[in-house]
C-alpha cells in the first residue's frame, strides 16, 4: 500500500521534472551541450574482428572471415557518428566489438582514456555503465516474461543504482516519462505494446544506467514509417537532455544523414569514406558512397538524381578481392586498384577517403 502511494508520488515528481525540462529553451537556440567542453569519449584504434570459419582436424582455425579489418575512429562526447553500409559490411560486428559483446581480434578501444579491449570481465562490468546498446528488433530484444518495470529495473539492480525499491520504482517511472511512455504502464508486459512503444522501452532500458555512449544498431529499421520519425526525434531529444554520444548503425542513408554529425561508410570490413555528415552525403568522393547515394529511391520527382547502378553484389568477406575491396564493382577502376589496397587519406579537413582515384 505504502509503496503504491510512494510510486504515485514519485510519478508526480517525474512529470513535474519533465515539465521543467520542456520549459527549457527551444532546440537550436541554446543547446545545453554548447557549454560542455567536447572531449574524446571513445577512441578506436585499428580494430579487427576475425571469425574462424574452417578448422583443421586438430581444431586450429584455418580460414577467417575478416568481418572488421582495421577500423580506427574517435567519438566526442555528445556526438553522433553514423555507420552506414550494406549487410555483411561489418557494421554490426564493429558496434558489438566496441562494447565487448564480441571479442575483438586486434586493436584497442579506449573509453575516456581507459583501454577496455583487454579488460577482464570483472573489471569491465562496472565500466559497462558507460555504454549501452539499443537493438534493431523491438520484439526480440525484450524478455516477454518480464514486466516493463523488471526490464528497465534490471540494469538498475545490476549496477546498484537505486537505494531502495521506492527509489528504483521512481527511476523507472522517470525513465518511462523520459521516453514518452505513461508510467502507469510499468506493470505491463512487452506484448501489450506496439513496435514503436517497445523500442521506447528498449531506449529506457539503455538510459537506466546513465550511459555516455549508446550503440544504436538499426533502431528504426523494423518500425513503421510513421513511427520511425517519432523514434528518431526522441533519440535526438534524449541526446540533448542526457548529453549522449551515439554510434548510430543503419543502412538507410537518409536516416543516417539526418541524425549524424559525422558519417563512416563501410565496405567489406573497412572504412571507405568518413567525414562530416552533410559533406559526405552532398559531395561523396568514394565511388561506393556515390553509388549508395544514387541508389536511394527519391520521393520527389523533381529531384531525380543521375543513376549510378552498381553491377554485381558485395563479395564474400571470406575471400575478399585483392587490392581495393571495391574494385570488382567500381566504375573508375584503374590497374593499381587491383593490387594496392588504398589507405584512408585526407581529401579535405576531416574528410577521408580510401580510394586511389578520388579527387578533392
Amino acid at each position, binding site marked *: 500500500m505504502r509503496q503504491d502511494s510512494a510510486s504515485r508520488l514519485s510519478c508526480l515528481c517525474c512529470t513535474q521534472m519533465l515539465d521543467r525540462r520542456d520549459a527549457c529553451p527551444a532546440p537550436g537556440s541554446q543547446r545545453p551541450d554548447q557549454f560542455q567542453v567536447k572531449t574524446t569519449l571513445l577512441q578506436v584504434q585499428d580494430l579487427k574482428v576475425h571469425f574462424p570459419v574452417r578448422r583443421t582436424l586438430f581444431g586450429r582455425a584455418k580460414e577467417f572471415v575478416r568481418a572488421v579489418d582495421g577500423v580506427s575512429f574517435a567519438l566526442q562526447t555528445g556526438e553522433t557518428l553514423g555507420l552506414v553500409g550494406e549487410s555483411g559490411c561489418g557494421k554490426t560486428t564493429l558496434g558489438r566489438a566496441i562494447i565487448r559483446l564480441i571479442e575483438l581480434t586486434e586493436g584497442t578501444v579506449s573509453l575516456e582514456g581507459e583501454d577496455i579491449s583487454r579488460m577482464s570481465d570483472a573489471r569491465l562490468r562496472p565500466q559497462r555503465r558507460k555504454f549501452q546498446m539499443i537493438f534493431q528488433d523491438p520484439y526480440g530484444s525484450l524478455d516477454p516474461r518480464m514486466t516493463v518495470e523488471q526490464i528497465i529495473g534490471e540494469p538498475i539492480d545490476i549496477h546498484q543504482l537505486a537505494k531502495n525499491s521506492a527509489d528504483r520504482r521512481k527511476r523507472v517511472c522517470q525513465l518511462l516519462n523520459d521516453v514518452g511512455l505513461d508510467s502507469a504502464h510499468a506493470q505491463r508486459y512487452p506484448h501489450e505494446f*506496439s513496435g514503436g512503444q517497445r523500442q521506447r522501452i528498449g531506449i529506457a532500458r539503455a538510459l537506466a544506467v546513465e550511459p555516455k555512449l549508446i550503440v544504436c544498431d538499426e533502431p528504426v529499421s523494423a518500425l513503421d514509417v510513421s513511427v520511425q*520519425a517519432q523514434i528518431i526525434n526522441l533519440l535526438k531529444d534524449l541526446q540533448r537532455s542526457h548529453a549522449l554520444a551515439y554510434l548510430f548503425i543503419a543502412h538507410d542513408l537518409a536516416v543516417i544523414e539526418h541524425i549524424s554529425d559525422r558519417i563512416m561508410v563501410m565496405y567489406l570490413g573497412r572504412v571507405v569514406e568518413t567525414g562530416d555528415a552533410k559533406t559526405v552525403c552532398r559531395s561523396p568522393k568514394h565511388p561506393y558512397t556515390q553509388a549508395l547515394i544514387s541508389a536511394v*529511391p527519391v520521393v520527389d520527382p523533381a529531384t531525380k538524381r543521375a543513376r549510378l547502378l552498381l553491377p554485381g553484389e558485395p563479395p564474400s568477406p571470406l575471400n575478399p578481392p585483392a587490392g581495393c575491396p571495391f574494385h570488382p564493382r567500381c566504375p573508375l577502376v584503374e590497374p593499381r586498384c587491383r593490387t594496392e589496397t588504398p589507405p584512408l587519406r585526407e581529401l579535405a579537413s576531416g574528410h577521408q577517403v580510401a580510394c586511389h582515384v578520388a579527387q578533392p
Partner: protein
Amino acid sequence: MPLLEINNLTLEFGTPANPLRAVDGLSLSIADGETVCLVGESGCGKSVTALSIARLLPTPPARYLGGQILAEGRDVLQMTKTELRAIRGGIVSYIFQEPSASLNPVFRIGAQIKESLKLHRPDAATDAEVIRLLKLVGIPAPESRLHDYPHQLSGGTQQRVMIAMAVASEPKLLVADEPTTALDVTIQAQILDLLRDLQQRLGMSILLITHNLGIVGELANRVAVMYAGQIVEVAKADALLRRPLHPYTQALMKSVPKLGSNAERLLAIPGQVPSPSAFPSGCRFHPRCSQAQKDCSLKSPDLIEVDPGRWVRCPYWNETTIVPQ
C-alpha cells in the same frame, strides 16, 4: 475493360463476434501495361488485398463479405478451384518480400523454374528456356546456376530467380509484395531497374506493394494510398508526389527523412497505426491528423473525385492541402 478491377472488396478475419475488418470497401483497377503502387504501413490491408487477387488467402480464417475481383472480366471470388488454377500464374504471378522463404530449399533452382513452365507452358519446359529466363532477369552465367540450390545464391539473385519463376508463365499481371524490402539499397536499385525493364519488354502490368514512397517515385504510373483498411487517396504518381491531398499522405511524405534536407526535426505522425479490431470512428485517421476538424470523428468520409482519376477520402482536402517543401 481493365485487366483487373476490384470493386468494393470487403474482407474480414477473426470470429464473427469479434471481427477484424482488414479491408473495407476497396476499389482499384489496373489497366494493361500499367504499374500501380499500393502504399501503406503494416496492417493497413495492402498485402491481403494483393493476395486476394488470386484468392491465395485461406478461407477460413479470411471471409469475403462482398465485392468483386474481376480479372479480365471474370470474378475471381466466384471461381471454382480449376478456374483458379488457370488464373494463378496464367494471369497473375506473385513475388514476395523474402525470396529465401519463397524458394524451396531442397530443390535446385532450375527445377523450380521448370515446374512453373510445366504447368503453364509444357512445350517450353526445357533447360534452354530456363536459361533464357535466367538471362532475362540478369543472372550472369545462367548455365552454371541451373543446378544451384537457393542457399548458394545471394538475396538479390534469389529475388531474380523468383522473378524468373513468376514471368515463366507469361502472366499479364505481376504482383510484387515488398519485393525489395529485405534487400540492400544497391541491390534494391538493381531489382527495381529489372522490374521496369521487364515490364517494358514483356508488356505486363505490375501491382507493387510497398511502404516506401521513394519506390513509388521510381516505378509507378498510379498510386493508391491505404490507411486502416481503406484507400485514402488515388492519383497519378507524379501528381501525388508533387501535391499530396490527403493529410495522411502529406504526413507520410514529411515524416520520411530525405537525403540533402536541412530539417532539424522530422514531422512525426503522433500515435500508432490503429489495430483492425479498434478502428477509430468517423475518419480513421482523425486521431493522428494534425488538421482534424470537429466532425471528423463523427462521419466517415467517402472517396471524392477531385480531378479526373484523382480521388481523396477527406472532405477538407481543399482547405488542408499544403504543398510540401
